[in-house]
């Protein structure tokens, strides 16, 4: 039944043997030592500060959507770092390996990477950046913000939320393991067929790629299910579809794509797996397979996937720009309709990824026109943002700058996108550096927006500010880097340079490549400032606590609750009176954050089951990669068993009594409050694990005591108004 494989296999270790650990390659040695040392340092630090219990109880087994979101983002940032290192390596190789007379280092003929190694690096760069960096960061932001924005206590399925996180983490772990045990795929992040078929990739690289993508894909599908169910079913009282915040609209559109498009990827990968493991002929060139069918299925997912990541980015921009323009978003309805239209149209454009396949002109024309049509709602969004800025009072805090950068990139990327949408133009620049530059315009738009979102909502989640100055410096260097790298790549595209070259045959491509390398340097500086921003924020967290409404001109519901957000989000669910509820309340001076009554709150208990399932999935992936069949059988049985046993547990929730909530939230009757004030009784949970426990609350206590002494006048709904 299973196909015959090259090399040895034994029932216990499968294909795994000591040869598969590439300890001879210097670069991998270096990476290995780096990873091991970092891991050791982290583990030692956790042990030294005795944080294991805290880590386990407050984070790893938590079902709190904010903590899971934070873990998503941390995972995304770690993988972003890895992907960035890959990018640095790609650009350095290309700038070193130009022309026949370029020297080789570390055993390579040109540059410092042999082709096979280089091919794995760009494949992992693409896979990591799209699926394990950008997607987790955005999913994390959505997981944190959507329940807060719609006034819910948590996502609809908190347990599923943790599970999807651990599935994504298992995928990421597979990618990381591939660095040291075996190889990664050399066939690009898209899995170029038939290069991924067994005869051309007899190694385990493709399997690593396949199962890592499969795991994270299942994770994304399920997290999308979770978000849609949350948005449909759990909106706060009074929030009709006209009052849903715009980021939630984009989260909904994104999730629609996630639910419908990711399964197609799963199907494609299952068929590919059948080809590789069982010898079927879905995508082989021989015996009646059709290799373009893989490309077709992949891009049925792949194109919507682009919108899957770009829509939340649009949502972030649509939240940040109004805040720092001090006015409402222009054209709310258009924006919501545009988000849904993008999600819908994304389904009929996928063939533009292979215009050159040789399909008829009619087919190409149809897909070209459909592709241009996607530009319409995207254009609408751009116009709306411009009109939101118009007649505003613009402040240029770091998040705003990042959003404006994203806006500029949207216009540039959109322009080149429409150029590529014309089949005849695509014939000449398909698979060229121009294409690379185009989709990196969009990927960087997303990165800009994701960084904006991170800086925008950071004070909400953690209760203190990030350093604004460092954030701005990071923005300028990041923009300079983007301009240098992708400006050069646009030019190189017209010069005829194609993608995925590990050796550059033509010396006239050197100047732009050098410029791109300079851009990489700017990126390094920018990432230094991003780290510094976090560091300074952490250092000064005691002196600069963020209030519940840190930007003072925010609009949607999430700014109504405390910063850091209590575990139950809202002590009592707020009633929504209109679009931009918090702006409405501020305008009408109903700024009291403390309700006059409390109820019992039912909260999910912590559980380690998702972590266990994630670990089992990782084991399953690893077993499948190395064809260790006993491990596969054990993990599959384990997963089934764990799911069934968990389903017999009916005591997965605990209740916070109304009295306890009242105490946590500021005492019976509550405290008067004003915008910008601090939660006087922060729950201990939302403090980041790297911050010392107690520091924030001590500082908050100080502020709270000043408040009690009557520095701030009571809100309009004073004690008398409470029923």
């Amino acid at each position, binding site marked *: 039944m299973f196909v015959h494989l090259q090399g040895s296999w034994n029932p216990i270790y499968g294909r795994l043997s000591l040869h598969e650990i590439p300890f001879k390659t210097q670069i991998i040695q270096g990476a290995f030592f780096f990873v091991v040392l970092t891991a050791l340092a982290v583990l030692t630090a956790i042990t030294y500060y005795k944080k294991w219990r805290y880590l386990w109880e407050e984070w790893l087994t938590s079902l709190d959507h904010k903590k899971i979101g934070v873990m998503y983002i941390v995972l995304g940032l770690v993988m972003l770092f890895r992907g960035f290192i890959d990018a640095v390596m790609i650009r350095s190789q290309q700038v070193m390996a130009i022309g026949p007379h*370029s*020297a080789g280092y570390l055993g390579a*003929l040109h540059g410092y990477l*042999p*082709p*096979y190694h280089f*091919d794995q690096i760009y494949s992992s760069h693409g896979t990591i950046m799209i699926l394990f960096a950008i997607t987790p960061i955005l999913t994390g932001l959505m997981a944190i913000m959507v329940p807060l924005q719609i006034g819910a206590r948590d996502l609809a399925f908190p347990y599923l939320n943790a599970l999807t996180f651990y599935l994504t983490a298992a995928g990421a772990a597979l990618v990381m393991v591939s660095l040291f045990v075996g190889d990664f795929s050399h066939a690009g992040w898209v899995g170029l*067929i*038939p290069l991924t078929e067994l005869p*051309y990739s007899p190694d385990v690289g493709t399997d690593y790629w396949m199962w890592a993508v499969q795991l994270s894909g299942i994770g994304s599908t399920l997290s999308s299910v979770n978000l849609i169910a949350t948005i449909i079913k759990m909106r706060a009282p009074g929030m009709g579809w006209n009052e849903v915040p715009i980021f939630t609209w984009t989260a909904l559109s994104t999730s629609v794509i996630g639910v419908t498009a990711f399964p197609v990827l799963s199907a494609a990968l299952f068929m590919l797996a059948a080809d590789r493991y069982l010898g079927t002929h879905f995508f082989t060139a*021989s*015996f009646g397979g059709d*290799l373009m069918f893989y490309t077709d299925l992949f891009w049925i997912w792949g194109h919507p996937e682009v919108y899957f990541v770009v829509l939340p980015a649009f949502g972030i921009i649509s939240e940040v720009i109004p805040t720092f323009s001090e*006015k409402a*978003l222009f*054209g709310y309805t*258009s924006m919501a309709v545009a988000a849904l239209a993008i999600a819908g149209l994304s389904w009929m454009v996928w063939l533009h990824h292979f215009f*050159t*396949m*040789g399909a008829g002109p009619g087919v*190409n*024309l149809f897909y*070209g026109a459909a592709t241009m049509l996607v530009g319409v709602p995207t*254009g*609408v969004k*751009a116009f709306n943002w*411009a*009109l*939101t800025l*118009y007649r505003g*009072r*613009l402040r*240029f805090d770091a998040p705003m700058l990042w959003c404006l950068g994203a806006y*500029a990139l949207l*216009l540039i990327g959109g*322009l080149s996108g429409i*150029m590529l*949408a*014309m*089949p*005849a*133009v695509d*014939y*000449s*620049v*398909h*698979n060229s550096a121009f294409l690379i530059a185009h989709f990196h315009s969009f990927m960087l738009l997303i990165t800009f927006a994701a960084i904006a979102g991170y800086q925008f909502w950071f004070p909400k989640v953690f209760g203190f500010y990030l350093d604004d100055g460092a954030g701005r410096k990071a923005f300028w260097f990041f923009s300079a880097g983007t301009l240098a790298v992708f400006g*050069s790549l646009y*030019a190189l595209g*017209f010069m*005829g340079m*194609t993608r995925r*070259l*590990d050796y550059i*045959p*033509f*010396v*006239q491509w050197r*100047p732009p490549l*050098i410029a791109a390398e300079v851009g990489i340097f700017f990126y390094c500086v920018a990432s230094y400032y991003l780290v510094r921003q976090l560091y300074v924020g952490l250092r000064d967290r005691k002196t600069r606590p963020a209030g519940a409404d840190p930007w003072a001109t925010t609009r949607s519901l999430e700014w109504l609750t405390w910063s850091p957000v209590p575990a139950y989000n809202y002590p009592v669910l707020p009633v929504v009176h209109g679009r931009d509820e918090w702006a409405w309340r501020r305008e009408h001076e109903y700024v009291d954050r403390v309700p006059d009554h409390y109820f019992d709150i039912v909260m999910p208990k912590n559980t380690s089951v998702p972590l266990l399932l994630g670990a089992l999935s990782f084991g399953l992936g690893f077993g499948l990669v190395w064809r260790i069949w006993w491990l596969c059988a054990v993990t599959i049985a384990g997963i089934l068993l764990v799911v069934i046993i968990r389903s017999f547990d009916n005591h997965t929730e605990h209740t916070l009594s109304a009295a306890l909530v009242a105490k946590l939230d500021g005492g019976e009757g509550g405290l008067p409050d004003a915008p910008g004030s601090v939660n006087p009784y922060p729950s201990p949970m939302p403090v980041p694990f790297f911050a010392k426990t107690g520091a924030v609350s001590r500082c908050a206590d100080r502020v709270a005591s000043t408040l009690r002494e009557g520095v701030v006048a009571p809100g309009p709904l004073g004690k008398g108004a409470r029923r």
Partner: protein
Amino acid sequence: MPSRDRPRALYGLALICLCLGGCQARSVWLFHPHGAVAAAEFHYTVIDFAIMILIVGPLLVATALIIVRYRKGRNARYDPHFKKSRVLEALMWGVPIATVGVLTYFSYQAVYLADPYDPTAIPRSLAEKSRPPPTAGRTSHFAAYPRSNGTVRHGPQVDVNVITTDWQWVFIYPRTGITTVDRLVVPVDTPVHFRLTSATVVNDFLIPELVGEIDIMPGMRTKLAMIASRPGNYRGYSANFSGGGFSWMGFTTTVVSRRAYRAWTRKAARAPDRMTYAAFDKIAKPTINLAEKPMYFSRTQKGLFDHVIRRVLTGRVYETPLRMTENMTKPLYVKVLH
């Protein structure tokens, strides 16, 4: 990097803006098409860009002006209630839709002009060359183009069957029976019709100055047609990653006059080697084309192209050792044009 290249690098760095603009640098291949199909593609690139910049340009400028004007503290008009306008919203939906309409019209023209299987750009360019003055309407975009089954089709034409292997290009001239490897020689101003297939994985045929891309897929046959308008050497290569030797997978296209082409045909027909099915198997063994050494074969076994497709369809695989590129330390010589 050898030191003699350094001044050029610095020079290039200094002129980076110029290079980014692409201006008149001859190395910006796509801006200097030497074939009707590539010219059509470039033409529509410019049209597409021009139409889009009409929208994007003003929007960028307007946004920049807004950002400057409405900064906080500049006391420009602040109107927090400006959040809805029927007219503006109708415009922002309408204008892009209209633009898409226009672009789709041009797309429609271009897709037939540059259709790889049957580009009408070729008969059109031939018609322009053979007929003294082009009619007034013909240069307009709104005129009908002569279809490919028009009067100019019966002229001389070169057929080339292209087979890609890991990582070489095999060009078969079925009419003369000549086969070349990594060297394509075609006459100027003559339509060249390619049939393409791959013996191993997917490649993409691309000669940036002459013609756009078409996929080359194992077990399938795609077609491509081009015409070169100026003699010279042009670089061709694969645009779709195909494994370890991909970066070296180039070939030189030499466009010569028709007379020189006939002379070349005669000369190549005297080459000692013959291209048989067995000889092809040898060529198809994974080879990295580090030193560009074109090969010539005088006679080709009949039906080699179909034979390769048939073999692929029935499961023939030219296996590629993954790590063969790991230890590429041979000294090499690569001939570089331009």
